């Protein structure tokens, strides 16, 4: 079973690698959105430092939403998804493998890029560390919850926008705890615990729900 998970994951990663431009465009979108905020709000370093964690998190959420449609769309278009549904292996695990690959291809680059953008917005070193860690814990949750929305809307017209519409309200707790970790006076540990709890919950529930949604979509 483990080798199956690994194989699906490596296949998706190989596909992502061959379409590097897609992965890169999500990352560039992230950088662009973050760069828009100083232009819209003004260059005062004090203001930017205050809003930086929120800006980085909101932009990460938007970038994650943008990449959602890639999760199942290509496999749906070429019929791979139907083969996955027909395979004797538990669909939940196959979906989990796909989500993991999707996070490595689209979520992890955001986590790695965030410190650089944090420096650009004038965040302090300690805050940048906290923020990167909160993104590392939080973006997998975004991918997991997002998978449910992507699965529900697979094959629909305007699927990308619709999936964001469904998923964004459900992602609000992640945003609150993720961006809140940086501002926390009492220490970020409580926020990390909560983010970890969300991650565990999402790991347990989201692949199940996404698999059920795929069965509904391809019934």
């Amino acid at each position, binding site marked *: 079973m483990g080798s199956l998970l690994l194989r699906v994951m490596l296949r998706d990663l190989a596909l992502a690698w061959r379409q590097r431009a897609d992965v890169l465009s999500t990352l560039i979108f992230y950088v662009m959105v973050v760069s828009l905020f100083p232009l819209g709000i003004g260059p005062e370093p004090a203001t930017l430092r205050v809003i930086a964690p929120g800006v980085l998190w909101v932009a990460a959420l938007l970038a994650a939403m943008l990449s959602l449609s890639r999760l199942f769309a290509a496999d749906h278009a070429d019929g791979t998804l139907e083969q996955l549904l027909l395979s004797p292996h538990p669909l939940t695990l196959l979906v989990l493998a796909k989500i993991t690959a999707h996070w490595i291809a689209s979520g992890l680059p955001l986590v790695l890029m965030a410190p650089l953008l944090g420096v650009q917005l004038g965040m302090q070193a300690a805050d940048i560390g906290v923020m990167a860690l909160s993104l590392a814990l939080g973006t997998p949750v975004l991918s997991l919850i997002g998978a*449910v929305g992507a699965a*529900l*809307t697979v094959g*629909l*017209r*305007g699927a990308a926008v*619709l999936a964001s*519409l*469904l998923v*964004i*309200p*459900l992602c*609000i*707790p992640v945003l*609150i*705890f993720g961006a*809140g970790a940086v*501002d*926390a006076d009492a220490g970020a540990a409580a926020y990390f615990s*909560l983010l970890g709890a*969300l991650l565990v*919950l999402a790991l347990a*529930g989201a692949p199940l*729900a996404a698999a*059920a*949604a795929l069965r*509904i*979509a391809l*019934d």
Partner: protein
Amino acid sequence: MSAQTKPVNQAPRERAGAIWLRYAAPLAFDPLAARMIPWFFAAAVLFGIAGLYIGFFVAPTDAQQNEVYRVIFIHVPAAWMSMLIYLVMAMWAAIGLIFNTRLSSMMASALAPTGAMFTFVALWTGALWGKPTWGTWWVWDARLTSELILLFLYIGFIALQAAIEDPRRADRAGALLAIVGVVNIPIIYFSVRWWNTLHQGASVSLTSAPKMAATMLTGMLVMTLACWMYSIGAALWRLRSIMAEREGISVVEAD
């Protein structure tokens, strides 16, 4: 275990169940709904008149807020309904998903616009109430924010069902979304409360509920009843339209 029960015992239970299950068929339920709708609307009007009368003429003027507080008679019932209807909607959707009953899923779809309407009314009247009492239309308070997110959840449900052309897929996809939403609502609510207590100073205290005169409470409860009756009537009305659209039941023929 069920295989060993005597057939004698089973017969009456099946008959009792059959009465209810008969109405699970849209064709059988449509005439019943047609007969019930006027009664629910009539009750809604009666309770509405009684509730508004108590609210505007019987209930005393508030010592601190003067007459402005009277928006409570529509605001609080609307807020209650908005939350209740989401739960009821998710329940019907789940029943439809689990037992594969078409009517339950249609009921969920019929409830969604009413729920969204009440959520919007709660937000709107809240803004109208907030301006004279707190001096602002909108506060990023935990309750207001949760209510706004609830509106987003309703909109997501309606948008998803509208985007899917196959009605059975729309039913089941909507059901899954509603169930995921219900699981998430406590998490969202508590995260928003946590966020709010950390960010906002104690400028506006919404949690200290003042003592309420008995007539105020009566007026609010009667208005809530009116909202219940309206919701059931409106949902059944919409349900009949959905049935007519999907099952080809003639609406004119039914009465």
